[in-house]
């Protein structure tokens, strides 16, 4: 199969990526067929019941904002965008009595190579995000929200706009939602394709109409966010998880994952597997199960390595990866991170030098240029890897790469520096002989790239 065919299978039709019927205990992608994204379909699946429940318009006693936050805390929902920060805790940071405007922002700027989960959520189940955001707005007393959608998925942006229109027409957004006292205006905005705008403060800058560059923290968005006002930024999938928690209870959510890692997670499995796509499975599911769902490694090939959390996560060799379960803590223990859940599977035909060349080029291209180590260092890394790949490397280059990456890591304003450094260091750590072979023989250790 050539790369073109792989890409072809990944087109956003959803047929291959999300509707393969192989999810385990799906909560977000449950019951989707690609056509049933409209409000009536969502409501038929039990949508907006969580909202009615907290507002008490379904005859129940309702929930106070504090109760909602407590429930999210108890559910152990962790941010699905990459960092895995406990969502309930983040919500509790928002100043309750702030006199001015506060903002809620959904980060749908899904730019991490390998990740395509937010796109499918917004494309095929947009109302679950809207409902999650209304609940979050209620919990934190926010009246204005934005969904910042990646610039390269314009159809998805239009789909979300249509869903917003439906929700507004049905009285689910705007003033006095469902006849209650809750007011919440939600708007869609789209970026223009810069990876850095997925970083929350760069996203806020971009949303304000400025150049997308991360801000120095502190102050954090909870005190100085959009337009300088307290702001909470969460990932699309995080918001999408909220209605289920409210409807079924925090304990139920926690029980379908592991302690400290509640609920299900959508993994975008890509690379050398038979059925790449989005797989929603409970937290703590063994990696081997996920690999099996995705049809296993391509026929006739052996698993070589896996990048478990999107391109910025350190690569793990097959032996380590097969022992892992898919949750934040297990992957972290193994020396990588769950990140956004983009599982990039590499089989034994992959040249690690070539792979790193592609990754390093990406980070050089996407560095915002604001702070020194990242602006200068990403280019340096990329050029040295280029050199090795082109047969002009030196045996000292591996140490140089590791040292330059070490000098970038932890010294930048945002996490992009770390994201550029970690893959390099992990590749050198786990696959050093392949790099040395490349330098010595001016060619790949593995057979020609397919």
């Amino acid at each position, binding site marked *: 199969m050539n790369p073109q065919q792989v890409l072809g299978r990944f087109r956003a039709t959803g047929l291959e990526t999300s509707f393969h019927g192989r999810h385990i205990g799906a909560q977000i992608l449950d019951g989707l067929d690609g056509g049933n994204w409209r409000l009536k379909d969502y409501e038929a699946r039990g949508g907006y019941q969580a909202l009615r429940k907290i507002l008490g318009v379904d005859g129940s006693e309702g929930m106070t904002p504090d109760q909602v936050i407590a429930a999210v805390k108890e559910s152990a929902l962790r941010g699905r965008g990459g960092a895995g920060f406990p969502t309930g805790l983040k919500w509790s940071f928002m100043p309750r009595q702030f006199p001015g405007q506060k903002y809620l922002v959904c980060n749908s700027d899904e730019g991490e190579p390998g990740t395509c989960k937010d796109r499918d959520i917004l494309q095929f189940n947009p109302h679950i995000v809207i409902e999650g955001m209304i609940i979050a707005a209620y919990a934190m007393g926010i009246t204005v929200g934005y969904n910042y959608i990646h610039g390269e998925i314009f159809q998805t942006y239009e789909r979300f706009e249509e869903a917003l229109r439906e929700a507004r027409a049905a009285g689910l957004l705007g003033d006095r939602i469902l006849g209650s006292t809750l007011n919440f205006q939600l708007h869609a905005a789209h970026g223009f394709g810069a990876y850095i705008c997925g970083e929350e403060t760069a996203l806020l800058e971009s949303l304000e109409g400025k150049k997308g560059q991360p801000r*120095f923290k502190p102050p954090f968005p909870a005190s100085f966010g959009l337009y300088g006002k307290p702001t909470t930024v969460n990932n699309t999938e995080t918001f999408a998880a909220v209605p289920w928690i409210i409807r079924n209870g925090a304990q139920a959510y926690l029980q379908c994952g592991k302690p400290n890692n509640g609920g299900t997670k959508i993994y975008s499995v890509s690379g050398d597997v038979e059925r790449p796509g989005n797989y929603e499975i409970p937290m703590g599911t063994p990696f081997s199960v996920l690999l099996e769902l995705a049809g296993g490694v391509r026929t006739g090939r052996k698993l070589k390595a896996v990048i478990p959390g999107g391109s910025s996560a350190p690569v793990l060799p097959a032996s380590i990866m097969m022992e892992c379960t898919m949750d934040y803590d297990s992957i972290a223990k193994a020396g990588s991170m769950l990140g956004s859940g983009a599982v990039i599977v590499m089989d034994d035909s992959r040249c690690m030098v070539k792979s790193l060349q592609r990754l390093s080029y990406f980070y050089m291209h*996407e560095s915002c*240029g*604001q702070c*020194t180590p990242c*602006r200068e260092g990403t280019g340096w890394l990329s050029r040295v890897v280029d050199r090795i790949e082109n047969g002009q490397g030196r045996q000292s280059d591996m140490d140089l790469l590791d040292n330059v990456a070490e*000098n970038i890591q*932890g*010294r930048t304003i945002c996490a992009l520096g770390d994201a550029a450094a970690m893959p390099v260091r992990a590749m050198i750590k786990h696959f050093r002989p392949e790099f040395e072979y490349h330098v010595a023989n001016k060619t790949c250790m593995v057979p020609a790239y397919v």
Partner: protein
Amino acid sequence: MIEIELDGKKVEVLEGSMVMHAAEKIGTFIPHFCYHKKLSIAANCRMCLVDVEKAPKPMPACATPVTQGMVVRTRSDKAVKAQKSVMEFLLINHPLDCPICDQGGECQLQDLSVGYGGTNSRYQEEKRVVFHKEVGPLISMEEMSRCIHCTRCVRFGQEVAGAMELGMSNRGEHAEIETFVGRSVDSELSGNMIDLCPVGALTSKPFRYSARTWELSRRKSISPHDSTGANLIIQVKNHRVMRVVPMENESVNECWIADRDRFSYEALNSDERLPSPMLKQGGAWKAVDWTTALEYVANGLRQVKAEHGAEAIGLLASPHSTIEELYLAGVLMKGFGSQNIDYRLRNAEFPNEAGVRYLGMSIASLSDLQSVLVVGSNLRKDHPLFAQRIRQAARKGCSVNSLQDRPMDWAMPVANSLVGDPSVWVQALADVAAAVAQEKGVPCPVHGTASEGAKAIARSMLGGERKAVLLGNAAAHHARASSLLALANWIGEQTGASVGYLTEAANTVGAQLAGAKPGPGGLNASQMLGGSLKAAVLLNCEPGLDTAAGRNGGPGLRAAEMVVSLSPFKANMDIADVMLPIAPFTETSGTFVNAEGRVQSFHAVVKALGDSRPAWKVLRVLGDLLEVDGVEFESSREVLAALPALLMDEAGATVRTGLLDNRTQAAVDFTPAECAPVVASIYQLDGLVRRAPSLQLTADGRLGFAAQEVAA
């Protein structure tokens, strides 16, 4: 207060301070590039990474807030390793062309690389090349590969100059500092970006390749242009002024100077300097020695006095002259029997009141205003550094109000603006007074209508605690200047605002203190220029350009039998009979009194060019020749000590208390003014800036020149 431990030393700083501030307080140097005390914190160069106990990663000192009991090490292995790694990154794409770089010797990158850089580079790839940019006549951006992207220049534009003219476009390695679509940098404060640039990316275009920094002697001086009295360091080589940079004085100019303070030195070395005294004989100019020239002048003045009386002689002095020159000019004229002396060249009204008009408050407190009404000023161009301070106040929430003749861009948020022809300003200010009266429920002394605009200004002026009514050059030169002042005083009284004049020139306040105004029965500037003189002495001024009469100033004096021009330049050649070369501010000692009444003396920084002599000496010798008493001084300091308005002590001179006073007894005159006030454009203010080629090439310079041509 929060106490932290920094390199083993205890230091107390205010809550909310950064580690960098604590280090500054105890004199510990933490290497940095992007941090600047007057700019917002960017934390992008990463050079100031330090080791903070309990923090896993090194933290930027400039952006890490202090916490109680924090332990910081700036020289630990972890900190130094981080600093060195950042230095390596900064240098990999830097051209390292120090031997041919104008910044060499005063470059922060060069200095710090000695301590933190390696002896050789591990980077063996091709270096980045960044194309040069053309941004106007003052700033050179020829070698942008040197840029380290600290964004100081960008932040300066946004925060201090008020207009973001430079920005960082593109991303990552392709990021470059440039203007939007190739425009020029036109800010009147743009030169400060050259000082701010820690490397040789932004350099001074007029200074380029003319000297090495270590060849230059540094001498203190005071700017002779606007009324800020900016403190300067003049850098000289071989008795030639090579460059001017700011001397930091927090209570005057902070660490900034305006472009005209910085680049006007070009005129000092220009071909237009007058090298020796000259006489006009048979329509042709002839160089003569000083004795001949002064004898000629003395004889001429004696002759006019004998034929027409001393009252036919007058002296017009520029308020950019030193207080010593102005005082001696007055002594000379009055001693010779004439009461005709005036420095108010652009004024249209000449009230005879005792108070010395001044700012009415300290310059520093402009930065802390909460509400201000500026009347008749192109604030940003007339007083770039005052505008900068008010801009800082506006950034902190100060409500800025204005009364002006046309919409102007002050590069700051203006809350309320009344725009009207100068002829109706008195009425407009009376309307504001009426609105203040209405808001406060007090009777209004004048008849005015509280229009919506006036009410908005009144409300703004009634709020807040620290506020001021400031009268600009157009208000001072207005035909109803006293009426405007009277109204401003009433508004000030009612709102608790201080009232003052921004004052036009470096020594406008000093000229008043020196008594450079007509004595009893004397002619004022307007009358002298109107053609009533038989002999005129022009001290450092050009009637055709420096006066309210404009191009008519020359013809008015043409009727005179003798015109003596004391100027550093070949000026007034069409009307003068004698030209005496006097020393500009860099070649004479002297004193300026700035808008707030601060007396600032300075020394000559280079020896006088050619046969030029300090004007105070010329006036003194002329006084001797004319047998006038009270001119026997041996030094400018003696002149200063003799000034009745000043008090001298060890520390220097101060203005005697009670002299600075903006009160007035004038009645408000509503008759519309017959002429619009005359205000110099930014680079036509005085003879020096007018002859600075680079300033004339700027956008403001070209506009000002065009306006002069139109007036002609």
